[in-house]
């Protein structure tokens, strides 16, 4: 066998054996490893894609839930705001009413205090005026004042003595003179017999006659009391009239 032919045949066989051996020992395991890597990569890729899809789905669910919660929160906020506004209006109305009531109470209290002060002032003024009138009548007192007061009492007796007025009680600061008693009896008419004369030193000049139809006080003390009561009454009337005008002015200004 020639060397060239032997080499040709040997090289052919050598290469075929080498290719088969490399294919079995090298290419097949490496391809298998590559396939395993590729499969693992694809599996990881699919797993990542699944997780990404799951994450996307969860994100959408969270977004949906968030939107629903926001909507619900908005509705709840609106409802609570309306309730709070209603409650605030109610509280303001109640506070306003309470303030109005307190204001009215204060006004009444002030008015009451004003009335009390006015009455006190009127009483003090009336007492001072009555005292002044009493002093004046005491200073100008005398027989003339006594006669004038008795005449005045007689005039009043004649006005009421048309019927039965007994029993009659006549009081004076000192015993009356006969003329004065006669004058009073004539004024009493038919009731003169049942007349009881008494002395009351506190009366001052004049007489105080108590009849079955009423009292005729023509004494200095009675005049003073009458003047005092008249003055208090007149001041009360004037004060009420002034308050009515004041209230009318307040209502007009409101």
């Amino acid at each position, binding site marked *: 066998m020639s060397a060239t032919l*032997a080499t*040709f*045949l040997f090289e052919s066989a*050598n290469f075929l054996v080498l290719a088969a051996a490399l*294919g079995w*020992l090298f290419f097949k395991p490496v391809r298998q490893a590559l396939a395993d890597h590729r499969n693992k990569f694809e599996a990881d890729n699919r797993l990542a894609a699944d997780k990404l899809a799951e994450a996307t789905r969860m994100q959408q669910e969270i977004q949906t839930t968030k939107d629903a919660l926001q909507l619900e929160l908005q509705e709840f906020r609106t409802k609570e705001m309306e309730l709070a506004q209603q409650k605030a209006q109610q509280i303001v109305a109640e506070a306003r009413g309470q303030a109005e009531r307190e204001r009215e109470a204060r006004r009444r209290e002030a008015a009451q205090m004003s009335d009390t002060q006015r009455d006190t002032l009127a009483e003090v003024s009336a007492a001072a005026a009555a005292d002044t009138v009493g002093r004046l009548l005491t200073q100008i007192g005398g027989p003339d004042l006594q006669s004038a007061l008795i005449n005045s009492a007689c005039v009043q007796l004649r006005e009421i003595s048309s019927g039965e007025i007994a029993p009659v009680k006549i009081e004076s600061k000192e015993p009356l003179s006969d003329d004065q008693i006669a004058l009073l009896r004539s004024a009493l008419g038919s009731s003169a017999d049942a007349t009881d004369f008494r002395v009351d030193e506190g009366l001052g000049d004049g007489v105080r006659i108590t009849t079955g139809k009423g009292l005729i006080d023509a004494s200095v003390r009675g005049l003073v009391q009458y003047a005092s009561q008249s003055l208090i009454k007149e001041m009360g009337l004037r004060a009420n009239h002034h308050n009515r005008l004041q209230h009318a002015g307040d209502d007009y200004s409101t």
Partner: protein
Amino acid sequence: MHLRIFGDPVVFQIGPIPITETMITSTVVSMVLLVLAVVLVNSVRTRPDHWISVIAFLVVETFDNMVKDIIGRRHAVVATLSASMFLFIAACNLAGQLPGVHPATGSLATTSALAAVVFLSVPIAGIQTNGLWNYIKHYFRPNPLLMPLHVISELSRTLALAVRLFGNVMSGHLVVGLLVALAGFLVPTPIMALDLLIGLLQAYIFAILSIVYIGAAISAGTE
């Protein structure tokens, strides 16, 4: 220094079978390739992230993609055959750079054997893929009169494969040997680097052409 072109010295004989220097070189190269393959596979199995494993992945994936780009689909056998050719030729060419080693691809018998393997692989792949009748029919297309030209084309390209690789490797080795003999030891270093590049390029060309030829046979039935 003894320079030879077509001769292949016999180292010893086993009975009537002469054992040449090319046979010993290619055997050693094959053994080294197998050992490297075992090391790479072991690294792939134990440390898949190591750079050695990355080299293994790169080699396999590169030839698989190359086959896919040329043929149109993945074909493990074709990729294994072409990658084995590239590795064997490249290893032989690299071995030729070692002092005193005659590259196996510098022998016309070796390159002819590789070309013959490709030549035989073409009809085998074509028949296996398309069937005997469909494969034979492609010789008669587009016109039966062109059948001789098809046969001549296949023979000539096989011859071209063998002669191209043999010529490039042998000429490079011869030039380096002449320069070493004439100018000294370090002078042919640039030429040796160029020869190294040419050796890798020729290995790549041989592998690519083998894929193209086999791929053409596989897709012959679909034309």
